[in-house]
C-alpha cells in the first residue's frame, strides 16, 4: 500500500470537486413535478407490468400522507417536490449487448469518470452497471455471469424479465410505507441494479454500480435489490458522482438485500456526490434507505461505506438479523467539510438467536460541517445470546465543526451482550508537527493521519476502491487545515 499512498499524495493537487462536469447527452425528460399521472407515465415509459404500476401508485398515495422526517441532526432547506424532474433518460436507447451502440458522449462521460465500460479494458474483473440520471445504460460482463446463473442487470429489465423474483422480494425488506423517502422512491424510481446469486454460487467478480446525476433539477431515485440464495456469496460496490450546480439536487435511493441460509453479501459504497461549494451552495441531498435482511440461519451482511460527498447525508444502512447465528456488520467513514452535514449510522435488529453485530464508525469533521453518528442496536425478546460491539470514533479538524454521537439501545433479552465504545479526538498538533519534522507538509500529514485513523474501515474495501477512497478523503480535506 505504501506506493499507492505516495502516488495519492502526489496526485492531490486538485482543490475543487473534480467530477463536476456536465455532459451534453440528449435526454428524454418528463416535465417537472409529481402527480399520479407522472408516476403512471414513468411506469408506462418503462413498459412495466401492471403490478408495478399499482405498487407505485400505492406508494405514492402513502407518501402524500407522510411528512419529511425531522428527527435527524440536520438543517434541511424545504424541498419543493414539484420543482424536481422525476424522469430523465438518455434519448439514444443503448442496446445492452454491444458497446458500439452506446452514445459516444455517454462513453466519454464514463471515461472521464474512470469507469471502465469496455470489457477488454477491465483487468480487475469488476462487472459494472452504469446508471446515468435515471436509467441503467450498460451492464458489463453479463454473459460471464450468466454462465453461473448469476443475474446482474438493470432493475427495469428485472421487472420485465424476472418479475416473479421482483414480485417476491421487492419491498420485502424496505416496505413502501417504511419512511418518507422510501415511499417516494417506490413511487418514482426509474432504475437501479438487480442482482441474483443462485444457490451455492460464489460470484467470481466484484459487481459494481456507478451512479451519476447529470440533468439539471433531476432527482435520482434508484432502486437496488440483491438476492443471495443459500450458500452464495457476492461483493457489491457502489460509486456516485454528480456535476457541480448551484441548486440542491435530490437523491433518494433504496437498497434492499436478502441473504438466505449461509449466504454472505458485502456491500461497499464510496459516496462522492457533489457536496456543494465552499460557501455551502448547491450539493446533493442524499436521503437513502439501505437495509439488509439476514433471512437465513448463518447468513451475513456487511455494509462498508465511505461517505465524503453530498451537502446532506441521511443514511442508515441496517441489518435485520432474522436467521439464527446470522451476522451483521457496519463499517463507516463519514467525512464532512465546509458546510456539509451528515447524519449517518446503522441499525442492527437482532431477532434470531446467537446473532452478532459489529459497528465500526469513524467520523471526521472539518470546516463548519456537522457530523453525527446515529445507531440503534435492538435485541428482541427471542434473540438469545445476541452480541453487539460498537466502536464510534469522531475526529475533529478545527474548532468550527461538530461531531455528535447518538447511540440507541433497546434490549429486551437479558442474555444479550452489548458493548459500546466511543472516542472523540482532535487531530493533534503534535502529530502534525512530528510529521512536519520528518519533512512531510501539513496537508500531507493530515491525509496520512486521517487515512491511518480510518484504516480499519478502508481495509474492508476491495483494493481498487480502497485506493479511491483514500484519495477521496485526502481531496475532501484539502484546504481544511492551515
Amino acid at each position, binding site marked *: 500500500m505504501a506506493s499507492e499512498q505516495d502516488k495519492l*499524495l502526489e496526485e492531490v493537487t486538485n482543490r475543487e470537486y473534480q467530477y463536476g462536469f456536465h455532459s451534453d447527452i440528449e435526454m428524454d425528460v418528463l416535465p417537472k413535478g409529481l402527480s399520479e399521472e407522472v408516476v403512471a407515465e414513468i411506469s408506462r415509459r418503462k413498459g412495466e407490468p401492471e403490478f408495478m404500476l399499482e405498487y407505485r401508485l400505492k406508494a405514492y398515495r402513502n407518501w402524500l400522507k407522510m411528512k419529511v422526517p425531522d428527527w435527524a441532526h440536520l438543517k434541511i432547506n424545504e424541498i419543493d417536490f414539484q420543482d424536481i424532474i422525476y424522469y430523465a433518460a438518455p434519448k439514444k436507447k443503448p442496446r445492452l449487448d454491444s458497446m458500439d451502440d452506446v452514445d459516444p458522449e455517454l462513453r466519454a462521460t464514463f471515461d472521464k469518470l474512470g469507469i471502465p465500460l469496455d470489457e477488454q479494458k477491465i483487468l480487475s474483473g469488476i462487472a459494472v452497471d452504469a446508471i446515468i440520471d435515471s436509467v441503467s445504460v450498460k451492464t458489463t460482463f453479463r454473459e460471464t455471469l450468466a454462465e453461473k446463473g448469476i443475474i446482474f442487470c438493470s432493475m427495469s429489465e428485472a421487472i420485465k424479465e424476472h418479475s416473479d423474483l421482483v414480485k417476491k422480494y421487492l419491498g420485502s425488506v424496505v416496505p413502501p410505507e417504511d419512511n418518507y423517502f422510501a415511499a417516494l422512491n417506490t413511487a418514482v424510481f426509474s432504475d437501479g441494479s438487480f442482482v441474483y446469486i443462485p444457490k451455492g454460487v460464489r460470484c467470481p467478480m466484484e459487481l459494481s454500480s456507478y451512479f451519476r446525476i447529470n440533468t439539471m433539477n433531476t432527482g435520482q431515485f434508484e432502486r437496488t435489490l440483491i438476492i443471495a440464495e443459500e450458500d452464495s456469496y457476492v461483493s457489491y460496490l457502489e460509486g456516485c458522482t454528480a456535476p457541480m450546480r448551484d441548486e440542491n439536487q435530490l437523491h433518494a435511493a433504496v437498497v434492499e438485500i436478502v441473504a438466505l441460509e449461509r449466504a454472505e453479501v458485502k456491500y461497499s459504497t464510496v459516496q462522492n456526490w457533489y457536496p456543494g461549494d465552499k460557501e455551502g451552495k448547491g450539493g446533493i441531498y442524499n436521503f437513502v434507505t439501505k437495509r439488509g435482511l439476514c433471512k437465513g440461519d448463518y447468513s451475513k451482511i456487511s455494509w462498508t461505506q465511505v461517505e465524503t460527498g453530498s451537502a446532506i447525508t441521511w443514511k442508515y444502512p441496517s441489518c435485520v438479523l432474522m436467521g439464527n447465528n446470522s451476522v451483521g456488520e457496519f463499517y463507516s467513514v463519514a467525512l464532512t467539510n465546509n458546510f456539509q452535514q451528515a447524519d449517518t449510522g446503522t441499525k442492527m435488529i437482532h431477532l434470531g438467536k446467537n446473532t452478532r453485530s459489529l459497528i465500526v464508525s469513524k467520523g471526521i469533521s472539518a470546516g463548519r460541517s456537522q457530523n453525527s453518528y446515529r445507531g440503534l442496536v435492538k435485541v428482541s425478546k427471542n434473540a438469545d445470546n445476541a452480541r453487539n460491539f460498537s466502536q464510534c470514533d469522531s475526529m475533529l479538524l478545527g474548532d468550527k465543526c461538530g461531531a455528535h454521537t447518538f447511540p440507541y439501545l433497546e434490549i429486551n433479552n437479558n442474555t444479550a451482550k452489548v458493548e459500546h465504545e466511543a472516542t472523540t479526538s482532535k487531530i493533534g498538533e503534535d502529530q502534525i508537527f512530528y510529521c512536519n519534522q520528518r519533512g512531510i507538509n501539513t496537508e*500531507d500529514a493530515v491525509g*496520512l*493521519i486521517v*487515512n491511518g485513523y480510518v484504516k*480499519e474501515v478502508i481495509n474492508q474495501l476491495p483494493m481498487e476502491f480502497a485506493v479511491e477512497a483514500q484519495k477521496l478523503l485526502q481531496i475532501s480535506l484539502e484546504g481544511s487545515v492551515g
Partner: protein
Amino acid sequence: MLKIRNLRAVIDGKEILRGINLDIKAGEIHAIMGPNGSGKSTLAAVLAGNEAFEVIEGSVEFNGKDLLDMSPEDRAREGLFLSFQYPVEIPGVSMTNFLRTALNEQKKYRGEEILSASDFLKLMRDRKKLVDMDSDLTNRSVNEGFSGGEKKKNEIFQMAMLNPGLAILDETDSGLDIDALRVVANGVNKLRRPDNATILITHYQRLLDYIVPDKVHVLFKGQIVKSAGKELAVELEKNGYDWIKQEMEA
C-alpha cells in the same frame, strides 16, 4: 554548519531563551546540559520550528541559510532532524509508510531521485541492522504501543533512515535502561561522519560515557553560561549544577 546568534524565544509571554549563541561545525558533537527548566528542550523545539514558541530576536543560520525563515518541513528537508523527547503516536500509519513518505518528500525537495519500493525496503533492512532495531517495530503503526525505550530506538532508526546533516537529540537518554542506552549511543556513533553534526541535549552525563562530545555547554535560565570540552560534563556529574547557579548568582 549552525550559527545561532542572540536567540530569544517566548511561550505564553514568558521568555525561555534569553539570548543563545552557539556555533557548530560539521563533524562535531555538542552536548547541551543544564538543570530542569533551563530551556534545553525549548532550544530544540525552536530550531525544529515548533510554532508554540515565538522567536522575538536573533538569527539562526543553517548551512548558510536562514533557518528561522523556513517551515518546519523545509528545515527537515534541509537536513535538520529532531529526535523527540516524547515521540508521538500516529495510529493506523505504518512505520514503513510514514518513513517512505518522509524520505521521498525530502528527496523530492533536494531534487534527488525517489527510491523504488525494493530499494527502500533494502535501505530499511540495512538501517535496522545498523541501529539494532527489532524488525517487527517497523511493521507496526508509528510509535503506537511502543515502550519508552522502543520509541527512543525508533527515533534513532528514523535518523538513520533520513541521514540528516544536523541531528538534535532531545533527552534521548532519559528513561532508557543501560542496554537501550547503549543501542542508542551505538547508533549515533555509527552514523557520525565528517560532514554531519549532532547536538545532544541531556540532563545526565551518563550518555556521554558512550558518545564523546567535542564540546559541552551548560544552559542556565535561557543562556549558555559555560562552554568547555568533555571534562565539563564529568565535573557537572560530580558537583551537580549548584556551583553553576552559585557562580551565576554571585
